[in-house]
């Protein structure tokens, strides 16, 4: 395992920000951490980076304890903070090279290529850049060293749609190279698009772990039947009814379902992937 946490807990006074988090991420995996503000996402990430000392439990990156051997742990990590603050008295290039030198790596060619891909003018002072451009500069310094693990706290904040797609593409490419990515986000669509697994945090607890490939297999079906009998077919679950409108989830081969539906008196039909939204709502929706 590249990253492992064991009963990781953080208290701020009487407030428990993170509650016995168990997590494992392997190389070449993209893991999404979901949850509203205050759910413990950033606390978890900050413990992994050695910024916070856990109240209980432990975390390791590449076998290095994140608090006691934080230096070696951080050597494996490229980090993009959620609240981005850069050295405003530097240009983008100066910042990237300064942080690169701290990692004892200078990759001028790769820097130029990536800056071109992100459409950044790195010769401009950071103080003069928009928040989106600043985030691009910060992403540049995160992606350049090609560390085994990337930790990104809400990385697509303030990015335009084109850049967001570009970034998600870069993350997929990182996965191809064997890098692991741990990122937190509020945007379910992008998490679903790029992640292999997703963890949902609620009040500091990991309440749900979801394999995204499995999620893609599950369909949400909304159908209006002429009759009143409940739909019964292998793979159907979570059935709800509102008059003649039925809603259910289906996990199984789609042709089989369609074959079965063809034999029913269906008046209206809508089939869509279940998606993360449905699961997320279960824990963080109004009725959660």
């Amino acid at each position, binding site marked *: 395992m590249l990253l492992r946490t064991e009963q990781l807990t953080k208290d701020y006074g009487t407030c428990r920000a993170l509650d016995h988090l168990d997590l494992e991420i392997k190389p070449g995996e993209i893991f999404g951490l979901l949850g509203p503000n205050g759910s413990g996402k*950033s606390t978890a990430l*900050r413990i992994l*980076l*050695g*910024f*916070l*000392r856990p109240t209980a439990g432990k975390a390791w990156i590449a076998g290095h304890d994140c608090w006691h051997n934080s*230096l*070696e742990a*951080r*050597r494996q*990590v490229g*980090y993009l*903070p*959620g*609240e*981005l*603050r*850069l*050295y405003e*008295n530097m240009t983008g290039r100066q910042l990237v090279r*300064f*942080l690169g*030198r*701290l*990692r*004892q790596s200078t990759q001028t060619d790769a820097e130029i290529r990536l800056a071109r891909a992100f459409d950044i003018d790195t010769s401009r002072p950071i103080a003069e850049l928009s928040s989106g451009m600043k985030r691009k500069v*910060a992403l540049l310094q995160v992606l350049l060293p090609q560390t085994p693990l990337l930790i990104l706290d809400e990385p697509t904040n303030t990015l335009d749609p084109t850049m967001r797609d570009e970034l998600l593409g870069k993350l997929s490419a990182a996965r191809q190279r064997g890098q692991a990515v741990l990122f937190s986000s509020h945007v379910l669509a992008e998490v679903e698009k790029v992640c292999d697994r997703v963890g949902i945090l609620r009040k500091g607890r990991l309440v749900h772990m979801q394999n995204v490939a499995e999620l893609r297999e599950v369909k949400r079906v909304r159908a209006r039947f002429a009759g009143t009998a409940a739909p019964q077919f292998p793979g159907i679950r979570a059935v709800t009814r509102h008059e003649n409108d039925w809603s259910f989830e289906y996990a199984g081969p789609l042709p089989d379902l369609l074959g079965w539906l063809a034999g029913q008196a269906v008046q209206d039909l809508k089939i869509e992937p279940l998606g993360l939204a449905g699961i997320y709502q279960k824990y963080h929706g109004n009725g959660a």
Partner: protein
Amino acid sequence: MMPVLVTKLLRDVRTGLILVCILLAAFQVLWARVTQRISGHILDSLQQLGGLSIEDIRTTVFQGPGQIIQAIMGGEGIRIDHAADMLSISYVHPLTIFILSTWAIGRASGAIAGEIDRGTMELLLAQPIRRSQVVLAHLLVDLWTIPVLCLSMWGGTFLGAYLVGFIGNPRATLAVNPWAFGPGLLNVFLLVFAVSGLTMWLSSAGRFRWRVLGLAVILGLLQFLVNLIGQLWDPAKPFRPFTVFYYYQPQPMMLETSWYQHGDVWLRLGVLAAVGTIGYGMALWTFCKRDLPAPL
């Protein structure tokens, strides 16, 4: 890794450093001109007009209500008709102490609490760099910048003495050897180091630069006042050794050739060195143990 960080920190302070150096040097030059007026002209005129001796002037001016001036001048041993003695006053002048303390407090308060406040500490410590290296880098910056401040003061004294004609002056009381001021710079260095070390300790535990700055200024001012009041009012005298400014007495090192034979000089230097070292040590310990809060 350390040279990269130290270079960056030096780059950050270079403009401020240049300005403070100019300010310190300019004050020394100005003070040389003031010295020329007092030691060279005013005293002569007073003596000619009223037939007063130097001792009369000292007694009349600096005893009683003038005691505060004497305290600021650096004690009873200063001979106002001697240019070197008068020049040495600029090293203990409240303005000089204010500038040096402002530099030390301003820089050290921003060193850790300032970076946390701005949110850039997170960016820095996300790199493979130890927290102890951050504190040590600031120590190295102090060890580099404080001598520059000292040299700028000495440069100002040299230039001022040269411009007003003290160097090589045929009158013994007005003749100044600028090299004699060199040993006193050690005391200047250690005062700035001590104030910087104490502020660094506060900074290492703080989250907001302005809060640390305010606290350090209050502590500094309090120490300055206790030391000053202790010089003017005997009941407050026992409290003076609890202030760093009590240990800042560079004049004997500048005016006495055998200063190094006096144990109390070394004691004062030792205390300031210890305060600065303890301050940095505590900063190291505090910063390495603490949680790093998210920027607001």
